[in-house]
Structure formats: C-alpha cells, structure tokens
C-alpha cells in the first residue's frame, strides 16, 4: 500500500473509534441520567407533599380514598412487614449459608443442588411469589393479613439473603477455619464464634439488601397483605404497605389522594436509597477488616 493509502486507512480507523466513543459516552450518560431523572421526579412530586401531618397520621374519611390524613398506616405497615419478613428469612438463610460452606464438602451434591435451587428461587418473579402465597393462604385458611404478607415476602427475600451470605462466607480464608479447628473447636462453635464474627459486616449488608428488596416490592403483597386505612393492629389483620399505597392511591382521580401517593413514593425511595448507601458503606468497611 502506498503511504497515502496507509494514512487514509489509519484515519478511518481512528474516526471509527471516535464515533463509537461518542456512542459509548452517550449511553453511559443515558443510564446515569435515568437514575437522576427518576429520583428527581419523585423528589419533585413527593417532597412538597411531605409534611409532619402526612407522616404521622393515617388517612381519614373513607376507604383509602379519604381526602385527609397521611400515610402513617403504610409507613408502619411496611416497617412491620419488612422487619418480620427479614427476620423470618434470616432464621433460615444464615444456617443454610453456613452449612453450605462449613459442613458440606466442596463437591457435595447437596451443596450444588441447593445453590442451584437458590439461583432458581432468585429468578422467580415476585408476582409468582404473590400467587403462591395466595395459594398457601387459601390452603391454610389465612386471610389477607400482615402474617400472610410476612411469609410471602420472607420467601422472596430468602434467596437474596442466602446467596449474598453464601458469597460472604465463601470469602473466609480456609486457614482461619483450620486455625479454629486446630484449637479444638467444634464446627458449630467455629461457625458461630469465628466465622460469623468475621462476616458480620457482610451479613449486615445481606440483611439490608434483602430488607430493601422486601419493602419495595408490591406484587408479592398485592394478594397477601391486603390493605387498610388503619395502623397495623395485629398479625392477622390486613396491613397497608408503601408500594401498595402508591399503586392504589395514584390510580384515583382525587388530587389529595394522589398527593399521598407521591409522599409514599418519596418516603419509600428515600428509605431505599439510604439502605443502599448504608449497604455499600458496610461493604467497604467489611473488606477493610477482612483478614486475608
């Protein structure tokens, strides 16, 4: 090729790269912008609707279409539901995560099957969990209630929590475990005294992530937790949740009611953002203290 041809070709290659670089930068901007747009929209609509009375009162005047009052029912409902579901999921997640890594051998079939099942569970859409929860409710004669919601959301949170914890425990260097065994500790003691302590920040992160997922989800509580204007009174009573509060109240033609929806959206979004940031901070701290 002549020198001219060579230069021309080089120029073309550089221009191709520049073209795609522009596309790439634009794509990145689109993605980052969408987050900002979404949060911005919620804040724009929701912040004006947030005031002390909104957060401390329940809706008044009519079956959640009342024009006055606030969203305390949804806030407390979501908190109770989230705490209950997360606690329930934790009871099962932690032992499973520990078992998979400390007791089962690396090549054990139980371990790989269980991990596979967890992956499957992780992929199940929340509406299916809701439908299944509804089935179980019918079966055992439970009505739409806080308890039904807790059970369903716990099912939803289980794979998320277990998987995250599994990854955290997997990172524990085997020398640490061996050191504990060689001091004469049983596996159970090793599990609880040594490993758990080492993984505490990671576990906390797992709990926070699962909690955030649980309270943000609407489809799983749609059938199971019911909805009500009142504060959650008991496990067997229906309970309001923030996601459903948004969903139901946004669909009404009354602007006051819609305001409550926006306020709920703002509260929920802020809550989730705080949880996410907290989880990230914990991860950073966890990896700082981990013994390598």
């Amino acid at each position: 090729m002549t020198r001219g041809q060579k230069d021309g070709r080089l120029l073309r290659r550089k221009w191709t790269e520049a073209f795609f670089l522009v596309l790439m930068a634009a794509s990145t901007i689109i993605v980052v912008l969408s987050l900002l747009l979404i949060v911005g929209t919620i804040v724009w609509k929701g912040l004006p609707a947030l005031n002390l009375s909104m957060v401390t009162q329940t809706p008044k005047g009519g079956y959640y279409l009342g024009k006055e009052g606030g969203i305390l029912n949804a806030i407390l409902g979501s908190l109770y539901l989230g705490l209950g579901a997360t606690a329930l999921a934790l009871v099962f997640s932690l032992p499973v995560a520990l078992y998979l890594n400390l007791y089962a051998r690396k090549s054990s079939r139980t371990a790989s099957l269980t991990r596979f099942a967890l992956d499957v569970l992780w992929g199940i859409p929340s509406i299916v969990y809701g439908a299944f929860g509804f089935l179980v409710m019918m079966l055992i004669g439970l009505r739409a209630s806080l308890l039904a919601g807790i059970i369903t959301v716990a099912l939803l949170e289980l794979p998320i929590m277990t998987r995250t914890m599994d990854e955290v425990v997997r990172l524990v260097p085997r020398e640490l475990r061996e050191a504990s065994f060689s001091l004469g500790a049983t596996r159970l003691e090793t599990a609880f005294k040594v490993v758990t302590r080492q993984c505490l920040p990671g576990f906390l992160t797992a709990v926070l992530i699962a909690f955030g997922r649980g309270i943000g989800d609407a489809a799983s509580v749609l059938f199971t937790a019911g909805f009500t204007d009142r504060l959650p009174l008991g496990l067997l009573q229906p309970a309001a949740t923030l996601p459903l509060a948004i969903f139901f109240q946004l669909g009404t033609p009354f602007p006051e009611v819609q305001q409550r929806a926006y306020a709920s959206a703002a509260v929920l979004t802020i809550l989730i953002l705080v949880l996410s940031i907290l989880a990230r901070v914990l991860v950073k701290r966890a990896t700082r203290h981990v013994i390598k």
Partner: protein
Amino acid sequence: MRLVKDWLGRRVMQAFSFIPGFLVLLIVVGLFWKSRAILAVKPVGRLLFSSAWQPLKGEFGLWPFLMGTLWVTAVALVIALPISLLTAVYLSEYAPRTIREFARPLIDLLAGVPSVVFGVWGMLAVVPFVGRVLAPLFGTTSSGYSILAGGIVLAVMIFPTIIHVSLEVFASVPRALREASLSLGATRWETVRRVVLRKGGQGILAAGLLGLSRAFGETMAVLMVVGNVPVVPRSLFAPGYPLPALIANNYGEMMSIPLYDSALMLAALVLLLVVLSFAVVGRWILVRVERRAQ
C-alpha cells in the same frame, strides 16, 4: 455436651438446606395443582393460543397476554441491550478511574429502585412523552399508555442487570490478552471488537438472557404504563396487557368467577416456566465461563 450441640446444629442446618430445593418443587407443583381445574376443561393449546378473553363466558385465551409480554420485552431488549453494552464497554475499557467509580454506584442504586417507583416515573414522564411527543412524530395518536411506554420503562429497569453482568464478563478477560492485541498495533476499539467481545461472547449472551428473564417477570412498573387492554397489540403505540399485569390486576375477581383463579394460576405457571428457563440457561452459561477463566 458440646458434641451433642454440634451434632444437633449440624442436623438442623442440613435440614434447612433442603428447604430451597423443596420450595422450588412446592411452588411449581402448587401452581400446577391449581391449574388442573382449567386444564381439565380446556385443552392447553386452546388456552395458550386463543385470543378470546371473556372470563364471564368461560373463555380464557391467553394469547393476547403472551403477545403483550413478548412485545414489551422485545422493545425493552432492543433499547436496553445496545445502551447497556456500550456503557459496559465504556466503563470497562475507556473510562478513567474517577468516572468509573462515579458511575458504578449510581448504576447499582438504579438496580435497587422499587418497581412501583419506576411506575410512578413512567406515569409522570414516559406516558406523556410517548403520547404527546413520540406519537405525533410518527403520525399516530396514542394516549401514551402503550407497549412503547412499557418497553421504555422496562429497558431502564434492566440496564443495571445487563451492565453488571457484562462488566463481570469483561473483567474476566485477562489484561495481557488486550495488551497482546494492542501490541500488534490495534486501536482500543478494534481490541474490544475483535478480542474482548469475542472472548466474552457467551457471557454477553448470558447477560442478555438474564436481562430478558428479569423483563419478562416485571409486574408493577409495566402495569402502570402499558394500558391493560386485553387484545393483541396492533402497534407500539397501542396498549397491551402483559401476563404479569393480568395476574396482578384480576386477583380481586378471581374468586367470584368460576375457573378464573385456575386460569390465573396457569398464567403464573407459564410465566414461571418461561422466566426460569431463560434465567437458568443464563446462569449456567455464566458458571461455565467462570470455571473456564480459572
């Protein structure tokens, strides 16, 4: 005493480990069990491919909803795949460290935003955009509640999924391989195209599959913007009715009309099986890729 506790602890934990597998079976069997009622009355083919949805008359054709789901998911993928891949390539191969460390947390935050919040944004921003800006641009009228609106919202929801997996795939390509290509005088873009994407090809496919399965099962956000009219969508600007939305919208009536609840459970079962097949295949590919990298 300590040994007894150890033995007991071990047995309990082992028992718990069977729970996930047991749950999967329970869910599949449970949904199938409830679907039996309607499957006994109507053949599966009729249910899946009929467009007649009139529950009061006992007609439960799921075809419009399958089509609705397909359309919305297709639109979402067409929008999300290129944007996500380009972003992932940029962050992995070009972006200076400061931009990378700024963008990644934001993308992870996007992943945590609840579905209903996406729905609110969709109703406030996307629906009017489609109805008042895009539709006239393309010479049609639309209320804005449409497949396109659903696809746009869904696309934004699956950005983080595809980006996250793609970034992991790119990170698994050894740096020395890139250096080899660059040493031959290739530009960074040529290296990406011919070497990185090629080596990571399967992983990218997995990323797409995982994004697809997430999009398929997404309920609330799409429900709020897609229109919910039970007909096969005629165009992007027409409303649709995806399968998850069907289940979510009608749980109230399902107990009062005969066979309605069974039909909805069947819908849930179909949804479950489709989503799972994509997700499982995607994850299996990723495991293989990971194993080969070691």
